[in-house]
C-alpha cells in the first residue's frame, strides 16, 4: 500500500462526488418527478420537499394497460434476441479466436463494416421484406433484427474472451478425437460463461430500450414498452408528465436492478474471467 497522501485522498473524494452527481442526479430527478403531484412536476422554482404520491402509478395502471402488455412484449423480445445473439456470437467468436486466414479476417471485418450502414435507411426495404414474410408485428422480427445488430460486437467480445482460454485445452480434446462442435460445447462453453453473461447484459440493455425498429415493425401484438412511452409523449390532449415519468421509472427499474446485480459478471466477463469481480 502506498502511503496515504491527504491531497490524493481529497482529490479522489471530489472525483467520486462528481461522478456520483453526474450519474445519479438525472435518474433521481426522474424517480422523484414520478412521485410528485401533477402540478409540482414542472414547478419553477423546483421543489425538493413535497408530499409523495403514487397517483401517477395508479393512473398508469388504469389508463395504459397497453404499457404493461408492452413490458411483456419487451421481455419476450429481449429474451429471444439475447439467446440468439449469444449463441451466434459464441459460435463465430470461437472460430475467429482459433482459426486464422485471410478469408476469415475479411469476414470478421465485413461483420463490422456492414454495421456502418445506418439502420434508419435499412428500414425502408426491410419493411417490405418483413411484410412479404408475414413477420411484421411479431416478436420474431424484432428478435432477428436486434440479434443482427448486436452480433458483430458480440462476436468481437466473444472472440476476445475465448482468446483468454488456453488453446492447450482444445488441443488436448482434439487429440482425444473430439470434433469442433464437441470442443465448443464441452470445453469452451463452460469456460466462457462469464463472457456470455457480459454479452447478454449488453444485448439485454439494448433490446429493452430499442426504439427505432420497434416503431417501424410493430403495431399492436408485439408493441414494446419504449414505443408506448413515446406515444405518451405525443398526445393531442396533452402529455401527462406524471404518468410519463412513472412509466419511464417502471421501464427503467428492472433493467437498472438487473445491471447492478450483473456488474460482477460484467466486469469478469470482459476480462476473460481473469479477475473475479
Amino acid at each position: 500500500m502506498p502511503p496515504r497522501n491527504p491531497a490524493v485522498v481529497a482529490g479522489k473524494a471530489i472525483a467520486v462526488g462528481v461522478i456520483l452527481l453526474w450519474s445519479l442526479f438525472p435518474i433521481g430527478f426522474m424517480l422523484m418527478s414520478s412521485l410528485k403531484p401533477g402540478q409540482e412536476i414542472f414547478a419553477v422554482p423546483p421543489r425538493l420537499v413535497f408530499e409523495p404520491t403514487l397517483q401517477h402509478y395508479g393512473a398508469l395502471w388504469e389508463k395504459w394497460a397497453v404499457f404493461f402488455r408492452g413490458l411483456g412484449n419487451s421481455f419476450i423480445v429481449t429474451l429471444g434476441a439475447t439467446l440468439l445473439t449469444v449463441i451466434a456470437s459464441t459460435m463465430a467468436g470461437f472460430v475467429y479466436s482459433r482459426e486464422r486466414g485471410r478469408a476469415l479476417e475479411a469476414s470478421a471485418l465485413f461483420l463490422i463494416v456492414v454495421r456502418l450502414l445506418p439502420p434508419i435507411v435499412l428500414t425502408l426495404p426491410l419493411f417490405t421484406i418483413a411484410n412479404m414474410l408475414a413477420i411484421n408485428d411479431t416478436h420474431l422480427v424484432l428478435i432477428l433484427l436486434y440479434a443482427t445488430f448486436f452480433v458483430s460486437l458480440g462476436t468481437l467480445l466473444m472472440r476476445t474472451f475465448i482468446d483468454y482460454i488456453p488453446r492447450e485445452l482444445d488441443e488436448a480434446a482434439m487429440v482425444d478425437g473430439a470434433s469442433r462442435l464437441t470442443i465448443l460445447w464441452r470445453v469452451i462453453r463452460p469456460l466462457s460463461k462469464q463472457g456470455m453473461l457480459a454479452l447478454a447484459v449488453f444485448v439485454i440493455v439494448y433490446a429493452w430500450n430499442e426504439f427505432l425498429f420497434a416503431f417501424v415493425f410493430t403495431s399492436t401484438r408485439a408493441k414494446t414498452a419504449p414505443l408506448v412511452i413515446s406515444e405518451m409523449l405525443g398526445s393531442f390532449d396533452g402529455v401527462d408528465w406524471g404518468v410519463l415519468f412513472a412509466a419511464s421509472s417502471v421501464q427503467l427499474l428492472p433493467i437498472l436492478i438487473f445491471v447492478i446485480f450483473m456488474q460482477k459478471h460484467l466486469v469478469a466477463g470482459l476480462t476473460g474471467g481473469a479477475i473475479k469481480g
Partner: protein
Amino acid sequence: MIKGLSRRQTLRGALGVAAVLAATPHRGFAASKTLNILAHRVHQNSLTTGPAGDLTKAWRDANDANCEWATFDTNPLQDRLFREASLDRTDFGVGFLVNSRATTAAASLLHPLDAYQSSAPIEDFADIAPGLVSAMRFDGKLVSVPFRHATIGLFYNEALLEEQGIKAPPKSLEELVDQAKKLTFRSSAGTPVTGMVLASDLTVFPVTFARAFGGDFIGPDLKLVPDPAALEKALATLADLFKSGTLPRTYATTSNDDQVTWLQQGRAAFTVLPFARFAQLNRQDQSKYPGKIKAIEFPASQSLQGRMSSVVEFWAMSIPANARDKDLAWNFIRAMSSKAVTTGAARNGNGPVRVSTYSDPGFAADQPLAAVEARALAGARVPLPAFPEAARAQTIFNEEVQLTVLGRKTPKEGVAAIIERVKPLLAS
C-alpha cells in the same frame, strides 16, 4: 423460435412470466370479423372512452366485428399509413390521415369513396364542414372523410392578467403585444413569467400572425406569400417579442407540449393552441391555475380590413386502396360519421366536424368554448394547401421564421428567403 426454446427447463419460468404479462388485459372476445384501425390515440379515446362511453360498441355488436386499434404519434402514424398502403395488401381497413400530409401522391394510395357515398351514404353529408371535405378531394375524388378538427385560438391566464391589472383580454394584435410585454414579470408565486410561449417547429403560429395582418404563407390558390408586407409585419412582431424577452429564450426548441406545461405552471401568460386543449390546460391535477385559463379567437391587427381566418388542422378517415375488407371499413366510417356519434365523440373530447354539433344543446351546454370555437371554425382555413412538396416547404418556412425571430435576419430578408426557396417547390 420461442417455441423451440420453451423446451428448455431453465427458461420455462421466465417464459411463464412473459406469457402472464403479455396476456394481461387483452380487449375483445371472439367476433367473426376484425377491423384493424391505424389511428392516433386521441381518435381511439374520443370514440371509446369518456362521458359518452364507447361509441363503437353498437357498431361492433351490429356487425359482429372487433376493432383492433394500432395507435402512433402523428408523423409515425402517417408514415405507417403510407407504408402499409404501398404494400400489395394490408390488414388495416381504416387509417386516419392528417390534412397536412394529404398530397396527390398520398391520395393515390387511398380508395376513392364516392361510390360508397352514393350506394351507402353518410347521414346528412352536407353538414360536415365543406371546407374540410373539399380539402380531401383529389382530382375530383373524395379519399377521406373528416373526423376531427383542431382550430387555433388564443389562450390566456386570467389570474396573471389580473395580477398586472389587465381587466380584459386583447381585442387586437397590437393590444396583445402590449399586454404580453406587460406580463413578462416575476409573479407573486415567485415564478418568472414570459408574456407568450409559442412552439417554433409548427407552421401554424407564424401563419396565424401573418393572417392577423391579412397575409399568408401560401394562399388557397397556391399563391406563395400573397402579401409580403403583411408577412414581414408578422415576423417583425414575433422578433420584437423575442428580443424583449416576451417569448422565452428556448423559443427555437419549444414544442407544443412545452406550451401546455408553461401555461399550466404560470410560466407564460399567453399561448396559441387548438381550442381542444382547453380541458387539459384547466385540469385540476396538472394545472396550477385550473379554471383560470381562458380562450378567445386570435385577435386580428387593427390595420386589417375584414375578417381574419383562423388556422384549422384536421384529421380524416380513409381506406387504403389495398385493404382487405373495404366494405367493413366503409361501414365503420359511415357509422362513426353519423350525427349521434359525432356529438358523442365531441362530448368525449373530439373537435366535431359537423357544424350542427355546436348547436346541439346536449353538447353546447357544458362546453364553455362552443360558441367561440364554432365562430372561429366557420371562417377557418388550413395553414397551407396540400401539394407534393408541402412538407419541405414548411420546413424551410419554419427555419427562416426562426432565423428572423432570433434576430439573425431582418424580416425583409427572411420573407425574401422564404419566397426564393419555396418557389421552386411549388413549380414541381
